[in-house]
């Protein structure tokens, strides 16, 4: 597969510079640990970053406390993934956010419909965001859009440190390019006929699209961890696993692996746990976004080669 073309630059919401004291950092909030990690890389020491969702949280379900709301209320800017991932936060942001600008880091990414179907232009034109897959970070090229969005937002809020942000962003973009290259290299060992991916819920849409895989099927249909398959879909998935010679079922660490385990047992393949919606803690194997991608791709390669 070729490189994903980056869509038009995101129209960052009109933010204006906030007056900061010389050594006062910009107060920044990010929702998931993955968004937070990218923001940290762009902002560096110049910002005071708060990550809203704890490590290991399923971003599809989360409840906030008054502290969370207070943090948002006191912040200069909030970065969210968007694309319907943090549905729970709409009202919290509307309520506590008040004047706090909210930046959707995924703005400008070319979105794909979930469940493995490649987005065609029709789907893009369709304003129905419920059909878009929110798991954009499985393609580092999408994260490059994040970086651009984050950098421009931070710079406009805090023009004095714009240079720092630009330098940090440049450095990190380079690392993302390196990651993209590394992934392309790593997956070459997987033969063409083994590039079928099965996963608990539809997180591999962008990964498959970028690196020449096919998301053969998911256990829960739709993009949510919160639904249940029918017997027909399970049967179809089992057939697909056999037909495509799928070697493994990947399961998020935050999701119950029961169905996957049974299906794997019946078809004689293995279950491989990976990280999807959240990083591990710093000492774990997926403490940063870069490590997270390397870890997951490592597991994929290991399982499918």
């Amino acid at each position: 597969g070729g490189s994903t073309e980056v869509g038009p630059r995101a129209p960052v919401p009109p933010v204006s510079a906030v007056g900061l004291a010389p050594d006062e950092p910009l107060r920044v909030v990010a929702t998931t640990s993955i968004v937070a990690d990218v923001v940290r890389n762009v902002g560096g020491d110049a910002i005071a970053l708060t990550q809203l969702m704890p490590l290991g949280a399923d971003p599809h379900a989360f409840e906030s406390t008054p502290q969370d709301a207070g943090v948002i209320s006191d912040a200069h800017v909030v970065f969210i993934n968007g694309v319907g991932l943090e549905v729970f936060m709409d009202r919290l942001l509307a309520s506590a956010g008040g004047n706090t600008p909210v930046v959707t880091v995924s703005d400008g990414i070319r979105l794909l419909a979930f469940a493995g179907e490649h987005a065609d232009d029709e789907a893009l034109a369709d304003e129905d965001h419920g059909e878009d897959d929110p798991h954009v970070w499985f393609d580092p090229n999408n994260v490059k859009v994040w970086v651009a969005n984050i950098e421009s937002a931070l710079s406009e809020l805090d023009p004095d440190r714009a240079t720092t942000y630009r330098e940090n962003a440049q450095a990190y973009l380079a690392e993302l390019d390196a990651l993209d290259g590394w992934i392309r290299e790593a997956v070459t060992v997987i033969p063409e006929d083994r590039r079928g991916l099965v996963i608990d819920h539809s997180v591999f849409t962008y990964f498959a699209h970028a690196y020449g895989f096919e998301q053969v099927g998911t256990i829960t249909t739709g993009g949510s961890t919160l639904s249940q398959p029918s017997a027909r879909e399970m049967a179809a998935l089992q057939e697909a696993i056999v037909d495509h010679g799928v070697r493994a079922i990947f399961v998020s660490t935050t999701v119950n692996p029961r169905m996957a385990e049974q299906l794997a047992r019946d078809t004689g393949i293995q279950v491989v746990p990976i990280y999807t919606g959240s990083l591990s803690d710093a000492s774990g194997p997926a403490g940063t976004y870069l490590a997270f991608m390397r870890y997951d791709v490592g597991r994929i390669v290991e399982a499918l080669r």
Partner: protein
Amino acid sequence: MAPLLEILVAPLRYPFMVRGIVAAILVGIVCALVGTYMVLRGMAFLGDALAHSILPGIAVGYIVSGGGRGPIFWWGLGTGILTALGIGALGKGAQVKEDTAIGIIFSGMFALGIALISTMRSYAVDLSHFLFGDVLGVSPSDLWLTAGLAVLVSVIVFVFYKEFLVLAFDSTLAETLRFPSGFLHYLLMVLIALTIVVALQTVGIALMVAMLTTPAATAYLLTKRMAPMMGIAALIGAVSGIVGLYLSYYVSVASGAAIVLVCTGIFLLALLFSPRRGIVRGWLQSRG
């Protein structure tokens, strides 16, 4: 400023805290009023059931409207009222007990909702939100809606106090007094549905069930008359809302959970120390 005052005032800096407290008080009062009837008629679970039952309505509303919050609310409300009327009809026909009627319709509707969602193949129907609610995410317009509801429910409960009392206590008497039993029965069901759907918007299922049941049950331990029971229940509901939110602010517990826990705590105190039916009193009596 005195430290205590400081403690009380500090959270009020945030407008969302103020809105949350107002919402919790309003919901606490309305739920207590409506919940009194539910507790007395053995329908404590109607809240939980209705909240789950509106799922298919929400799913259909989502499909039809393409995801707008407004239409989904009205679809939910419509389904809630229809379900409440269905439960009312099934329970009134005396074919099955009221709680069984609730159970059947609840699980049937919920299953229908899940089936619909599973064919929709879309996840945007925000289930977890309905489960946990989010009293801190209450918008000013939600607040107006809740306040409007609170006034409506209070007025109806006040106007029909006599009639609802007789209906709940002795339906044969209601018949012989020629009260329009059917109308009143369904009016109460609609009131309950209205309360639940609006409360759901602001506070979520778990919190709502607690607000419907626990204050009314606590008040039941403390008085032997209906009107004071409603008053005490409303007071407990409101106090739990305030204390719970402060607790949530200072201890950092999820706000809905904090309110429920305060509520449950008050119930336990009443259970132990009620002058009328308290355990401690019974225990003291049996010893001397």
